[in-house]
C-alpha cells in the first residue's frame, strides 16, 4: 500500500510541473497587463506603459519563468500585483469559503442523489424510474450560473426569503452565514445530482442482481432491510470513485457560482485575476487547484484500493 501511494505521488510531480508550465505560458500569451486595470479608464496608453516599468512587468519571459520557479521551490508563490498581499495569503483567505461551498454542495448532492438513485433502481423501468432519471438529466442540462440567477429571482426577489448574494462570515452569526450559502450550494449541487443519481442507480441495479441479495430476499427479510443493510452499502463503493470527479466539478462550478452570488472564494479570485491579469495569483491559484484535484484523486484511489484489494495488483 505504501508503495502504491509513493508511486502515485511521484507520478503526480510531472503532472504538476506541466500544470505550472502550461498556466505560466498561457498567461504570458494573454495581452494586456494589470497596470491598465490599476490606472483605470482615464489613464493614457503611454502612462500605462510607463507604469508597467515601475511595476516591473517588462521583464522577458524567461527571466520571469526562472524567478517564478525559483520562488516556487522555496515554497513561495510570489506576490499579487493588485491585491497588496502574497499569493499564498490571497489563496488561503479564500480557500475556506470555497471549501465550505463545496462541502455544502456535496452534502446537498448526496442528500438528493442517493435516495433518488436508490428509488429509481428499486422501481427500475417503471414510469417513476424514468421520471426521476429524466429530472436528474434535466439537472445536468441546466447551465448552473443561469440556474443561480433564476433562483435569485425566485427566492430573493419574488419570495424575499434568502439573500441574493454576498458572503456573511461565520463571525457574524451561524444562521446568516448558513443562509448566505444555501442558494449557492443548491445551484452548485444540481449538476452533480444528476450525475450521482445515475451512478447510484446503476450501481444499485448491479448489486440487486447479486446472489446474496436474492438470497436475503428469498429468506423473507424485509425489503427495506435488504436494501438498507446490504444493497446500499455495496452500491456506495462505486459512488466513492466518482468523488474525485464530483470534487473537480465543484471546484470548476465554484468559479461561476461564486461570481453569480458574489462570494469571495477561490474560484472568483481566479476569475477576477484572469480579467485583471494578476499573473502571480492566476499561476499560484491554478497550481493550488490542480494540486488539490490531483491529491483528492489520489486519496480516492487509496480509499478504493483499501476497499477492493484487486486494484492494488494493477
Amino acid at each position, binding site marked *: 500500500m505504501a508503495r502504491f501511494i509513493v508511486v502515485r505521488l511521484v507520478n503526480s510531480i510531472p503532472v504538476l510541473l506541466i500544470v505550472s508550465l502550461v498556466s505560466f505560458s498561457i498567461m504570458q500569451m*494573454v*495581452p*494586456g*497587463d*494589470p497596470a*491598465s*486595470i*490599476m*490606472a*483605470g*479608464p*482615464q*489613464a*493614457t*496608453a*503611454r*502612462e*500605462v*506603459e*510607463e*507604469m508597467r516599468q*515601475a*511595476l*516591473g512587468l517588462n521583464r522577458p519571459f524567461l527571466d520571469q519563468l526562472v524567478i517564478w520557479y525559483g520562488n516556487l521551490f522555496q515554497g513561495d508563490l510570489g506576490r499579487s*500585483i*493588485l*491585491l*497588496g498581499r502574497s499569493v499564498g495569503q*490571497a489563496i488561503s*483567505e479564500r480557500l475556506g469559503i470555497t471549501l465550505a461551498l463545496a462541502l455544502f454542495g456535496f452534502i446537498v448532492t448526496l442528500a438528493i442523489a442517493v435516495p433518488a438513485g436508490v428509488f429509481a433502481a428499486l422501481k427500475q423501468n417503471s414510469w417513476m424510474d424514468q421520471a426521476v432519471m429524466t429530472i436528474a438529466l434535466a439537472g445536468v442540462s441546466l447551465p448552473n450560473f443561469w440556474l443561480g440567477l433564476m433562483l435569485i429571482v425566485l427566492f*430573493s*426577489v419574488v419570495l424575499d426569503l434568502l439573500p*441574493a*448574494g*454576498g*458572503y456573511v462570515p461565520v463571525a457574524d452569526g451561524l444562521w446568516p452565514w448558513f443562509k448566505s450559502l444555501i442558494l449557492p450550494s443548491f445551484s452548485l449541487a444540481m449538476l452533480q445530482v444528476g450525475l450521482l443519481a445515475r451512478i447510484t442507480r446503476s450501481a444499485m441495479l448491479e448489486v440487486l442482481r447479486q446472489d446474496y441479495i436474492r438470497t436475503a430476499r428469498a429468506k423473507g427479510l424485509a425489503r427495506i432491510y435488504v436494501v438498507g443493510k446490504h444493497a446500499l452499502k455495496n452500491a456506495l463503493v462505486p459512488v466513492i470513485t466518482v468523488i474525485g470527479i464530483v470534487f473537480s466539478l465543484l471546484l470548476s462550478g465554484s468559479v461561476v457560482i461564486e461570481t453569480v452570488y*458574489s462570494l*469571495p472564494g477561490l474560484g*472568483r*479570485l481566479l476569475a*477576477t485575476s484572469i*480579467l*485583471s*491579469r494578476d499573473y502571480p495569483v492566476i499561476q499560484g491559484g491554478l497550481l493550488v487547484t490542480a494540486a488539490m484535484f490531483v491529491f483528492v484523486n489520489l486519496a480516492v484511489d487509496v480509499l478504493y484500493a483499501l476497499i477492493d484489494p484487486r486494484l492494488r495488483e494493477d
Partner: protein
Amino acid sequence: MSPRITRRQFGGLAAGAGLAAGLAAGPGSSPAQAQRRGGNIVFAAEAQPPTMDMHFSTTIATRNIAMHMYEQLVTRGENNEVIPELAESYTESPDGLTYTFKLRQGIKFHNGKTMTSADVLASYQRYQRIGLSRSILGPVASMTAPDPATFTIVLRQRVPVFIDELSQFAVPVTIHPSEEMGKEGNRIDPIGTGPYQFGEWVPDSHVRLRRYDGYTADTRYPGTNGFGGNKTAHVDTIEFRYVREPGGRVAGLETGQFHAVEDIPARAAERLRNNTAIQIHPLRFFWQQDAWMNHVKAPTNNLLVRRAIQTGLDMEEIMTVAADGQFDLQPGFQYPGNPYYVTDGQEFYNVNNKDRARALLREAGYRGEQLVLLTNSTFQSMYNAGVSVTEQLREIGMTVRMDVFDWPTAQANQRNREAWNLWFTGQGTGPAVGPFAAYVNLVSPQNQAFEPDPVLDGFYNEMRTLPTERERIAAFGRFQRRAYEHVHFIKFGDLTKVQAARSTVKGFRPYRIPRFWNVWLEG
C-alpha cells in the same frame, strides 16, 4: 428628447449650476444638530478598487475609498476652487516660478508619526518619479524642504495653471510618510493623514476603514469644503462593499442593508423617488461619453469619412443605451457652469443626418473599407455605446467590425495604430479635472490620433500658458472648435451618475466622490 427625460426625472436642476456647485450648500454649511458618534456606514460600490495607491490610479473605485484616508497639500473646495489642506498657506513669487508652501503643524500620520516637509518632499518626488499624471510636475526645476514646516517648488517656466493642476484629484498628489515613498509602485502601506485609516481589504468583497482618533481637524473651515475643510469622523467604521449588480445595490439600499450606493439604474431611481426613506442624488455631467478617432488608419485617415461618422450619429440613441437614460446632450467639452464651458463648434454636434452622412461618404470615395470599433466589456457604458454606433454606421452604409475585449486587452490594442478606427472611452469633465487633464491625450506627445495636429497643440499650449483666465478660456474655445472640425473625437453626451443614500445618513452631501466625514447615523 432625452435631456428632457433627464430633467423630468430629477426635478430640474438649474442648467448652469454644475454638479458640485448646484448640489452643495457651499463651504459655510456645517452640521449643526447633535451628531451621534459610532456605527458602521455601508456604501455599495459598483467596482472594486484595483489599488490603494492613489499616485497610480484614475479609478473612481479607488478614489471613493482613498480620499477618506489621504490628503493633499492643496485640494478643491465645494465650488471647485483651490483651497489649502495640509498647507497652512502658499505663495507664488512675482515671476510665477517659485511656490512656497507653509505646512500645518501637529499633523499626524496614521502610524503616529508627525508630518514634516520631508514627507511632503518625498511624496512629491515619488509622484514625479512614478505618479500616473507626473506630467503636471514636468515644468518643475527643483523641489526642496528648507525647514520642517516649509516646502518649495521652483519651475523652469511659468505655468499659470500650475496650482490648479497640483490640486486636481483625478490622480491626486497625496501625502504619505517619507519611509513609504521609496517603495515600489503599489507596494506602499496605505498610510495617510485623513480622518479615517485603513482597516481591512477583502478583495471581491469589501474595504473597511476605521476612524483615526489622532486626526487633527482643520479648524480654519466651519465644515466640509470639497475634499478639504473641517473634517470630523463620527462613525466608527465605513465599509465600501463591492456589489457589481445594480439591482443588488438598489435592493440593499431599500432594505437598509446599505446606507448609500452609487450608480442606480434609471428605472429604479424613478421608483425610489417616492420612497421617503431614501434620497436620490443625481450627479449630472459626471462623465463625458465619447470615442476617439484614429487619423492614420484607413478609412478614418480621410477627414470626410470622419465627418460622415460625426454627421450620421444619433446621440440620443447612443446615450439612451450607454447611460441608461440618464444623460444630457450638449456640445461643450466642459459642463455648463464650469468657467471653461464654451460652445464653439456646436454645429458639428449631434447633427444626426444620415443622408448627409451618406453624401459625405460618397464625396470621400468610401468603398466599403472596414471600420474597426474598439470597445471593452469591462465598462458597460462604453460597450453599450459601441453596440449602438455599430448599428448606426451600418445604416449609413459603412462596413463595421466591433471588437470587444476586456479592459486590459482593449488597452493593449489601443496602443496599436493598426488595430482600430474608433476607440470607445470617456472623460471625467466635472470639477477639478478641468480641460487640461481631460484632453491632454489629444495633443502631442500623447497623440491619441497617432498623427500630430500642430494647430491643436498650439491651442492647448495657449490654454495652459496665456496669462489671464479670459484668454485661456478663449483658447479653449479654439481648441474645442478645432477638435470638432478635424474630428479628433466624437462626443456622444454627458452621463449622469446617480448616487442615493438613506435618510438615516445625516450630514451627507453629494459630491463627485462620496464623503463620509461629518456624517453620522441617526438612531
